[in-house]
Protein backbone atom coordinates (compact mmCIF):
# COMPACT_ATOMS: atom_id res chain seq x y z
CA UNK A 1 0.00 0.00 0.00
CA UNK A 2 1.09 3.52 -0.69
CA UNK A 3 1.98 5.88 2.14
CA UNK A 4 2.76 9.58 2.33
CA UNK A 5 4.91 11.08 5.07
CA UNK A 6 5.28 14.72 6.02
CA UNK A 7 7.88 14.94 8.76
CA UNK A 8 7.41 18.62 9.57
CA UNK A 9 4.23 19.21 11.59
CA UNK A 10 4.93 22.95 11.74
CA UNK A 11 7.07 25.39 9.81
CA UNK A 12 7.45 29.15 9.83
CA UNK A 13 8.88 31.65 7.37
CA UNK A 14 9.40 35.37 7.24
CA UNK A 15 7.36 37.29 4.75
CA UNK A 16 9.12 37.57 1.37
CA UNK A 17 11.49 34.71 2.15
CA UNK A 18 11.56 31.15 0.82
CA UNK A 19 10.46 28.01 2.59
CA UNK A 20 10.58 24.33 1.63
CA UNK A 21 8.10 21.76 2.87
CA UNK A 22 9.13 18.12 2.78
CA UNK A 23 7.20 15.09 1.65
CA UNK A 24 8.27 11.50 1.09
CA UNK A 25 6.18 8.64 -0.13
CA UNK A 26 6.34 4.93 -0.60
CA UNK A 27 4.99 3.06 -3.59
CA UNK A 28 5.83 0.18 -5.86
CA UNK A 29 4.09 1.82 -8.82
CA UNK A 30 5.92 3.60 -11.60
CA UNK A 31 3.13 5.88 -12.75
CA UNK A 32 1.28 8.11 -10.35
CA UNK A 33 0.48 11.71 -9.47
CA UNK A 34 1.67 13.75 -6.53
CA UNK A 35 -0.10 16.81 -5.24
CA UNK A 36 0.30 19.62 -2.80
CA UNK A 37 -2.94 20.97 -1.37
CA UNK A 38 -3.35 24.09 0.74
CA UNK A 39 -5.97 24.29 3.46
CA UNK A 40 -6.32 27.81 4.91
CA UNK A 41 -8.32 28.55 8.08
CA UNK A 42 -11.49 28.48 5.98
CA UNK A 43 -10.66 24.76 5.54
CA UNK A 44 -11.33 24.89 1.82
CA UNK A 45 -9.04 22.36 0.13
CA UNK A 46 -7.13 24.12 -2.65
CA UNK A 47 -4.85 22.44 -5.16
CA UNK A 48 -1.48 24.20 -5.23
CA UNK A 49 0.52 22.11 -7.65
CA UNK A 50 0.71 18.61 -9.10
CA UNK A 51 3.44 16.47 -10.56
CA UNK A 52 3.13 13.57 -12.96
CA UNK A 53 5.58 10.84 -12.06
CA UNK A 54 6.56 10.09 -15.65
CA UNK A 55 7.59 13.71 -16.20
CA UNK A 56 11.11 14.49 -15.11
CA UNK A 57 10.63 18.23 -15.23
CA UNK A 58 9.63 19.72 -11.91
CA UNK A 59 6.23 21.41 -11.87
CA UNK A 60 6.03 25.16 -11.26
CA UNK A 61 3.07 27.41 -10.55
CA UNK A 62 4.09 31.03 -10.05
CA UNK A 63 5.77 31.22 -6.63
CA UNK A 64 5.29 27.50 -5.99
CA UNK A 65 7.63 24.85 -7.31
CA UNK A 66 8.44 21.28 -6.46
CA UNK A 67 11.59 19.24 -6.26
CA UNK A 68 10.55 15.80 -7.42
CA UNK A 69 13.12 13.07 -6.85
CA UNK A 70 11.50 9.89 -8.12
CA UNK A 71 14.28 7.52 -7.14
CA UNK A 72 14.37 8.93 -3.64
CA UNK A 73 10.57 9.11 -3.52
CA UNK A 74 10.75 12.68 -2.39
CA UNK A 75 8.41 15.52 -3.35
CA UNK A 76 9.15 18.83 -1.64
CA UNK A 77 7.32 22.10 -2.12
CA UNK A 78 9.18 25.39 -2.34
CA UNK A 79 7.32 28.62 -1.73
CA UNK A 80 9.21 31.68 -2.87
CA UNK A 81 8.54 35.29 -1.81
CA UNK A 82 6.22 34.04 0.95
CA UNK A 83 3.11 36.09 1.55
CA UNK A 84 0.85 36.34 4.57
CA UNK A 85 -1.87 34.62 2.58
CA UNK A 86 0.32 31.55 2.24
CA UNK A 87 -0.24 30.74 5.90
CA UNK A 88 -2.17 27.48 5.92
CA UNK A 89 -1.97 23.74 6.40
CA UNK A 90 -0.25 22.08 3.47
CA UNK A 91 -0.99 18.48 2.56
CA UNK A 92 1.03 16.27 0.29
CA UNK A 93 -1.03 13.63 -1.49
CA UNK A 94 -0.51 10.65 -3.79
CA UNK A 95 -2.79 9.19 -6.42
CA UNK A 96 -2.39 6.08 -8.51
CA UNK A 97 -3.16 6.14 -12.23
CA UNK A 98 -3.10 2.40 -12.79
CA UNK A 99 -6.33 0.88 -14.01
CA UNK A 100 -7.99 -1.21 -11.35
CA UNK A 101 -6.18 0.50 -8.52
CA UNK A 102 -7.79 2.82 -6.06
CA UNK A 103 -7.84 6.36 -7.36
CA UNK A 104 -8.50 7.94 -4.04
CA UNK A 105 -6.03 10.48 -2.73
CA UNK A 106 -3.66 9.21 -0.08
CA UNK A 107 -2.69 12.02 2.24
CA UNK A 108 0.17 12.99 4.49
CA UNK A 109 -0.57 14.38 7.92
CA UNK A 110 0.07 17.94 6.83
CA UNK A 111 2.47 20.75 7.65
CA UNK A 112 1.17 23.90 9.29
CA UNK A 113 2.92 26.92 7.77
CA UNK A 114 3.04 30.23 9.59
CA UNK A 115 4.16 33.36 7.78
CA UNK A 116 5.62 36.04 10.01
CA UNK A 117 5.36 39.70 8.96
Amino acid at each position, binding site marked *: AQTVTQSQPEMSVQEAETVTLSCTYDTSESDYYLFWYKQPPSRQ*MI*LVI*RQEAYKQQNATENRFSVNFQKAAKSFSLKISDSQLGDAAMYFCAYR*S*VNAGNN*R*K*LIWGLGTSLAVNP
Partner: protein
Amino acid sequence: AAGVIQSPRHLIKEKRETATLKCYPIPRHDTVYWYQQGPGQDPQFLISFYEKMQSDKGSIPDRFSAQQFSDYHSELNMSSLELGDSALYFCASSPGTSGRNEQFFGPGTRLTVL
Protein backbone atom coordinates in the same frame (compact mmCIF):
# COMPACT_ATOMS: atom_id res chain seq x y z
CA ALA B 1 -16.61 28.51 -13.41
CA ALA B 2 -18.97 26.20 -11.58
CA GLY B 3 -17.55 24.46 -8.55
CA VAL B 4 -18.52 21.53 -6.37
CA ILE B 5 -21.44 22.39 -4.14
CA GLN B 6 -22.00 20.83 -0.76
CA SER B 7 -24.98 21.27 1.47
CA PRO B 8 -25.48 22.01 4.19
CA ARG B 9 -22.27 23.85 5.04
CA HIS B 10 -22.81 23.37 8.74
CA LEU B 11 -24.84 20.77 10.58
CA ILE B 12 -25.38 20.16 14.26
CA LYS B 13 -26.88 16.88 15.42
CA GLU B 14 -27.38 14.99 18.64
CA LYS B 15 -25.94 11.57 19.33
CA ARG B 16 -27.90 8.74 17.76
CA GLU B 17 -29.54 11.06 15.23
CA THR B 18 -29.19 10.77 11.47
CA ALA B 19 -27.69 13.19 8.99
CA THR B 20 -27.68 13.51 5.22
CA LEU B 21 -24.93 15.36 3.40
CA LYS B 22 -25.31 16.31 -0.23
CA CYS B 23 -22.76 16.88 -2.94
CA TYR B 24 -23.37 18.39 -6.37
CA PRO B 25 -20.40 17.79 -8.68
CA ILE B 26 -19.13 20.10 -11.35
CA PRO B 27 -21.27 19.73 -14.50
CA ARG B 28 -20.14 16.81 -16.66
CA HIS B 29 -18.17 15.27 -13.81
CA ASP B 30 -19.34 11.70 -13.33
CA THR B 31 -17.13 10.69 -10.42
CA VAL B 32 -17.60 11.69 -6.80
CA TYR B 33 -15.34 11.07 -3.81
CA TRP B 34 -16.17 11.52 -0.13
CA TYR B 35 -13.51 12.28 2.49
CA GLN B 36 -13.73 12.77 6.24
CA GLN B 37 -11.33 15.11 8.02
CA GLY B 38 -11.34 15.08 11.81
CA PRO B 39 -9.99 18.03 13.79
CA GLY B 40 -6.27 18.42 13.22
CA GLN B 41 -6.17 15.32 11.03
CA ASP B 42 -5.54 14.52 7.40
CA PRO B 43 -8.51 13.64 5.19
CA GLN B 44 -9.58 10.01 5.15
CA PHE B 45 -11.18 8.50 2.08
CA LEU B 46 -14.69 7.15 2.68
CA ILE B 47 -16.22 6.10 -0.61
CA SER B 48 -16.40 6.97 -4.30
CA PHE B 49 -18.86 6.60 -7.14
CA TYR B 50 -18.49 6.48 -10.90
CA GLU B 51 -21.49 6.58 -13.20
CA LYS B 52 -23.83 5.98 -10.27
CA MET B 53 -22.01 2.84 -9.16
CA GLN B 54 -19.76 2.51 -6.15
CA SER B 55 -16.21 2.43 -7.46
CA ASP B 56 -14.16 2.24 -4.28
CA LYS B 57 -14.70 1.96 -0.56
CA GLY B 58 -12.44 3.17 2.19
CA SER B 59 -12.82 3.52 5.93
CA ILE B 60 -16.54 4.15 5.88
CA PRO B 61 -18.43 2.87 8.95
CA ASP B 62 -21.32 0.49 8.44
CA ARG B 63 -23.57 3.18 9.92
CA PHE B 64 -22.89 5.29 6.85
CA SER B 65 -24.22 4.73 3.38
CA ALA B 66 -23.99 6.72 0.20
CA GLN B 67 -25.25 6.74 -3.33
CA GLN B 68 -24.96 8.66 -6.55
CA PHE B 69 -28.10 9.65 -8.38
CA SER B 70 -28.97 9.91 -12.06
CA ASP B 71 -28.01 13.60 -12.10
CA TYR B 72 -24.64 12.60 -10.59
CA HIS B 73 -25.19 14.29 -7.29
CA SER B 74 -24.33 12.19 -4.29
CA GLU B 75 -25.66 11.86 -0.77
CA LEU B 76 -23.89 10.56 2.30
CA ASN B 77 -26.31 9.18 4.86
CA MET B 78 -25.10 8.86 8.41
CA SER B 79 -27.11 7.09 11.09
CA SER B 80 -26.69 6.50 14.83
CA LEU B 81 -24.33 9.45 14.97
CA GLU B 82 -21.50 9.32 17.47
CA LEU B 83 -19.38 12.10 18.96
CA GLY B 84 -16.45 10.85 16.90
CA ASP B 85 -18.32 11.55 13.69
CA SER B 86 -17.79 15.27 14.25
CA ALA B 87 -15.63 16.27 11.33
CA LEU B 88 -15.40 18.15 8.08
CA TYR B 89 -16.77 16.09 5.23
CA PHE B 90 -15.40 16.87 1.81
CA CYS B 91 -16.82 15.89 -1.51
CA ALA B 92 -14.66 16.00 -4.61
CA SER B 93 -15.59 15.42 -8.22
CA SER B 94 -13.66 14.56 -11.35
CA PRO B 95 -14.43 13.82 -15.01
CA GLY B 96 -13.98 10.07 -14.98
CA THR B 97 -11.95 7.84 -12.76
CA SER B 98 -8.59 8.14 -14.44
CA GLY B 99 -5.89 8.96 -11.99
CA ARG B 100 -4.80 11.67 -14.38
CA ASN B 101 -7.99 13.60 -13.71
CA GLU B 102 -7.84 16.23 -11.01
CA GLN B 103 -10.24 15.99 -8.11
CA PHE B 104 -12.00 19.27 -7.44
CA PHE B 105 -13.03 19.77 -3.84
CA GLY B 106 -16.17 21.32 -2.47
CA PRO B 107 -16.09 23.64 0.55
CA GLY B 108 -17.00 20.83 2.92
CA THR B 109 -19.80 20.20 5.39
CA ARG B 110 -18.86 20.74 9.00
CA LEU B 111 -20.75 18.20 11.11
CA THR B 112 -20.90 18.64 14.86
CA VAL B 113 -22.37 15.86 16.96
CA LEU B 114 -23.35 16.86 20.49
